[in-house]
Each structure stands twice: as C-alpha cells, then as structure tokens.
C-alpha cells in the first residue's frame, strides 16, 4: 500500500511565523499535491509538483510556497502565517495514473 505521511497532525502557530508542513511518500511517485480543506468549500489545490524541483500553482497559491528537493518529500511553506490560513492541509501523491493517495492531514491553527 502507498503510504503518505504528514509530519504533524496538529500545529498551532502565531501570526507572522514561517510555517513548514512536511509530506513524505514511499512509492516513488512523480506527482505530489497540497490541498487545503475548509468546511463547505471541499478541497482546493494549493500547489503541485510533477518532479523534483518542479512545481506549479494550483487554484489558491497566494501566501504559500513549496519545495521539492527530493522525490519523496514535498513541503508546503507559509512564509508569514495569517489567521485566514487556519485550515486542514492534505498532502497527496500519485503515480502516472490516478487515483490520488492522501496523508492523514495537518490541522493548522494560526492565532
């Protein structure tokens, strides 16, 4: 089975802090994704990466950046956390063909 691991289940950060959310997959997938999940809005794509050092913006990239230095690891970075970034963050990976395989999510609270 594919395993996608997000390093934190819960995070509490202060406004203005730089925040790193880490995601690791063990299946050598080229494609990795970061989604944000909010009640009533479903999942929205923040960024995705289709190879090491390659990235593309999703639907809501503002306020976020990403890093993919190694194939198995995809990091989401909040350069200066704000309260409107309080949310659930889901990482996913994918082989050349669907489906997506998800991590357990990180619930981030920015105070």
């Amino acid at each position, binding site marked *: 089975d594919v395993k996608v691991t997000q390093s934190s289940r819960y995070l509490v950060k202060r406004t203005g802090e730089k925040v790193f959310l880490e995601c690791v997959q063990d299946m050598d997938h080229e*494609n990795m994704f970061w989604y944000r999940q909010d009640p009533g809005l479903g999942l929205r794509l923040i960024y995705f990466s289709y190879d090491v050092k390659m990235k593309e913006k999703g639907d809501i990239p503002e306020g976020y950046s990403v890093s993919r230095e190694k194939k198995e690891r995809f990091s989401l970075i909040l350069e200066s956390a704000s309260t409107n970034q309080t949310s659930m963050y889901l990482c996913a990976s994918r082989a050349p063909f669907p489906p*997506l395989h*998800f991590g357990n999510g990180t619930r981030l609270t920015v105070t």
Partner: protein
Amino acid sequence: AQTVTQSQPEMSVQEAETVTLSCTYDTSESDYYLFWYKQPPSRQMILVIRQEAYKQQNATENRFSVNFQKAAKSFSLKISDSQLGDAAMYFCANPGGSQGNLIFGKGTKLSVKP
C-alpha cells in the same frame, strides 16, 4: 472550467438500508476517471470507488456501486446495507487541469442511524 457539484450537504440513512449520494460534473475531456472518496473523522481520505469514463459498466466494490450517466455527466454513489462505519464525509472527484490534479465537490456528510 471543470466543476464537480454535490447538491446534498448532508444525508442520513438507517443502518442496513440503502442511500444514494449525488454528483454531477463538467469536463471537456473525452476519457477520464471519476472517483468517490470517503473521509471519516480520522481525516484519512480513502478511495471508495473509481469509474473509467470509457467503460459503460457501472463500477462496484462490495456494498458500494455507482450509477454513471456519461451523457448527463452524473456520477452517483449507492451504499447498500449501510453500516455505522460508513458515517463520513463523501467527496466526488474528477480529474481537471494538468498533471492529474483532482477537482473535488464540496462533500456530503453522511450520518448512519442505528
């Protein structure tokens, strides 16, 4: 723009009975997959079932089946013999954009009554 619409924010079903969750989508692709994911309180997104658009036969996985109407762009999920463990958020998803990104509906919260 490619969209996925789940018109039922919440549904409820009695244990052992059958429930159907609705989903409509819009895509310009001719060949694509459709998915239903389940998200229980543990938050893990679990793939429930997938349908390949070029296949006319509806997909089935144990108690879960779909009613895929390609012309109508409708993709509903039927859960038979509902169990307490089926209580979760259910998301319909359709590939959109480049690199196989999935576009998700807003979800349907399913409650199962004992």
